[in-house]
C-alpha cells in the first residue's frame, strides 16, 4: 500500500514538474510532493530531514556556483569573453561559430553548464544580434555545448557532484573514466554544428571589438581582481577534487572571496545577486531528495534499476545500461530526478556492488549528454511549442529535434564506447 501510494505521489509530482500547471514553478510541485509523502507516512519527518541534510555538499555547491556566476557577471566577464571570441573571429561568421563553441566549452568546464546556459547564452545572443548575423546557429552552439562539455570536470555540472559524492571517486579516477569521453563529446558536437551551419554562418561582419570589450569592462581593476579569483577558484576545484574535499565548501569559500573582493572594490550589486541566486532551486532540489528517498524506502528505485540491470553481467553492459536508462529518463522528465532515481536504485541493491561504479558513470554520462536530444526534456519541449504557437510565435520544432537527433546519439555512442574501454 505504501509503495503504491509513494509511486502515485511520485508520478503526479513528476507530471506537475514537467507540465507546470498554471505556470507553477517546479519547486512548488516538488515541495508539494514531498509534503504529501510525509503526510501520508511514505516517509518519516526524520528520514525526510536526513535526506535533505545529507546533501549539504550539493546545496552549498549550487549556492557557491550561483554567487560566483553573479560576481563574474557583475564585472562583465561573460561580455568580455564574448568580445574576445568576436575579435578572434576576424570578421568571419564561421570562425565566430567555432569560437563560440570553444567559449561555451570553457565556461561550462570551469563555471558549470548552468552559467553557460543562463548567462553566456543571452550574452552571445546580444552580441550576434548587434553583428547582424543569424542568431539561431550561435544560440544552438552555446546550448548544445553546455551539455556536451558538462562531463569534463566534477564541477562542470552540479549533478556530477551528486554522483561524485556517492562514488567517492577522486579526480584521477573520475578523469580516467570520463575525460576521453568528454573530449569526444565536445569534438563531435563541434563537428556536427560546424557542418550543419557551414552555409548559414558564411557571412562576414565588421565589429570594433575593442570598443565592445571596453564597454563590457567598465572597471578594469575589479575585472582583473575577479578573474584572478576565478582562476584561483578553478585551481581550488581541481585540487579539492583530487583530494576528495567537499566541493560545496570550496565553492562557498571561493564565492565568499569573490563577494568580498567585489565589495572592497565597490562593485557589489544586490541586483546581480538576486538575479542570479534562485532560492526556489533549493526548494526544488530538497523536494526531489525527499520524494526519491520515499520511493527508495518503498523499494521502488531498487526494483526499477534491477529490472533494467536484469541482463547485465559485466562492466561494459553496465555502462551501456546506465547511459541508456539515464538518457531516456532525462529526456522524459529532467536529468536531476532521473539521476537521483538511478543513484538511489543502484545504492539500495538494484545493482551488484561490482557493477555499481560502471553503471553510475554510465548514468552520469547519460544525464549530462542525453539532454541534447530535447533541451528541456521531450514533454516539456512539446508543451513549450504548444504555448509559443498559441502566442503566435512561429518556431520550427524540427530545428531543435533534427539537431538534437544528430548530436545526442553520436555523442552518447562515442562517449559510451570510451567509458566502456576505460573499465577494461
Amino acid at each position, binding site marked *: 500500500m505504501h509503495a503504491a501510494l509513494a509511486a502515485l505521489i511520485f508520478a503526479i509530482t513528476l507530471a506537475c514538474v514537467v507540465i507546470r500547471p498554471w505556470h507553477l514553478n517546479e519547486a512548488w510541485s516538488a515541495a508539494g510532493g514531498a509534503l504529501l509523502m510525509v503526510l501520508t507516512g511514505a516517509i518519516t519527518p526524520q528520514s525526510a530531514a536526513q535526506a535533505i541534510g545529507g546533501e549539504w555538499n550539493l546545496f552549498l555547491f549550487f549556492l557557491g556556483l550561483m554567487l560566483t556566476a553573479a560576481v563574474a557577471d557583475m564585472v562583465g566577464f561573460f561580455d568580455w569573453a564574448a568580445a574576445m571570441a568576436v575579435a578572434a573571429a576576424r570578421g568571419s561568421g564561421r570562425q565566430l561559430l567555432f569560437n563560440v563553441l570553444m567559449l561555451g566549452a570553457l565556461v561550462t568546464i570551469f563555471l558549470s553548464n548552468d552559467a553557460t546556459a543562463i548567462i553566456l547564452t543571452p550574452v552571445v545572443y*546580444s552580441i550576434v544580434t*548587434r553583428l547582424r548575423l543569424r542568431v539561431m546557429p550561435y*544560440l544552438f552552439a552555446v546550448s548544445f555545448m553546455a551539455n556536451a562539455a558538462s562531463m569534463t570536470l566534477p564541477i562542470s555540472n552540479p549533478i556530477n557532484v551528486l554522483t561524485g559524492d556517492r562514488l567517492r571517486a577522486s579526480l584521477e579516477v573520475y578523469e580516467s573514466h570520463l575525460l576521453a569521453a568528454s573530449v569526444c563529446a565536445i569534438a563531435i558536437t563541434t563537428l556536427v554544428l560546424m557542418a550543419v551551419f557551414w552555409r548559414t554562418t558564411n557571412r562576414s561582419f565588421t565589429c570594433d571589438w575593442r570598443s565592445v570589450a571596453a564597454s563590457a569592462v567598465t572597471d578594469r581593476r575589479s575585472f582583473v581582481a575577479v578573474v584572478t579569483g576565478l582562476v584561483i577558484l578553478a585551481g581550488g576545484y581541481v585540487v579539492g577534487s583530487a583530494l576528495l574535499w567537499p566541493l560545496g565548501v570550496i565553492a562557498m569559500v571561493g564565492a565568499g572571496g569573490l563577494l568580498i573582493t567585489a565589495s572592497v572594490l565597490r562593485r557589489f550589486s544586490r541586483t546581480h545577486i538576486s538575479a542570479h541566486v534562485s532560492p526556489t532551486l533549493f526548494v526544488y532540489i530538497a523536494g526531489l531528495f525527499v520524494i526519491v528517498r520515499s520511493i527508495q524506502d518503498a523499494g521502488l528505485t531498487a526494483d526499477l534499476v534491477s529490472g533494467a540491470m536484469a541482463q547485465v553481467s559485466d562492466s561494459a553492459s553496465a555502462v551501456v545500461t546506465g547511459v541508456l536508462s539515464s538518457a531516456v529518463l532525462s529526456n522524459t522528465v529532467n536529468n536531476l530526478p532521473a539521476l537521483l532515481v538511478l543513484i538511489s536504485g543502484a545504492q539500495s541493491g538494484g545493482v551488484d556492488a561490482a557493477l555499481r561504479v560502471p553503471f553510475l558513470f554510465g548514468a552520469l554520462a547519460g544525464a549530462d549528454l542525453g539532454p541534447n536530444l530535447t533541451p528541456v526534456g521531450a514533454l516539456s519541449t512539446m508543451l513549450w511549442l504548444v504555448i509559443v504557437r498559441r502566442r503566435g510565435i*512561429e518556431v520550427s520544432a524540427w530545428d531543435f529535434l533534427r539537431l538534437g537527433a544528430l548530436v545526442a546519439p553520436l555523442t552518447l555512442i562515442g562517449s559510451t564506447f570510451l567509458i566502456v574501454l576505460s573499465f577494461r
Partner: protein
Amino acid sequence: MKILVLIDGLHTREMLAALERLVELRRAHLILAYVRGTGPRASLEMLRRRPGRHSSPPHLDRRLHEAEVTVGDDALAEAEAIARATTAGVETVQVAGDPGRAVCDLARTRGVDLIVVRSGPRLGPAARFVADHAPGPVLLLRSHVDR
C-alpha cells in the same frame, strides 16, 4: 501609392535598388518596416530554462532588448537614408512579432497598395506567409544568392 517594404538590415541596398527599377518611386510613399522576430527570443528562453529557477535576470533581458532595438533602429536609419535619394515620402516603423504576420497587420492597418518582401533562393517563412495572407498585392524580390 503607399508601399510597405520589409527591411531585414542585410539586403537593404539591393532591395531598394531593385524596387526603384520596377516601380516609379518619386510619387510613392515608402513605409520601411523592421520586425524584431520573437521566434529567436522564445527559443532562447526555452534553452535557458532550468527547473526550479526563477525567470531570467532582468538586466540580461534589458540588454537583449536594447541590442534588438538598436539593430532595428540602425537598419531603418540606413534604409531611410538610401530611400530618401529616390523619394521624399519615407516613413519608418519598428515592431516586434512574427515577421510575416506583422507585415500583413501593418499593411492592413495602413491601407498600403503594395507590399515588398525579399527572399533568398528558397522562400523563407516570412515571405511565404505574406504571399499567402497579404491583404493586397505582393512584390517578391528574389535573390539567387543567400548571403
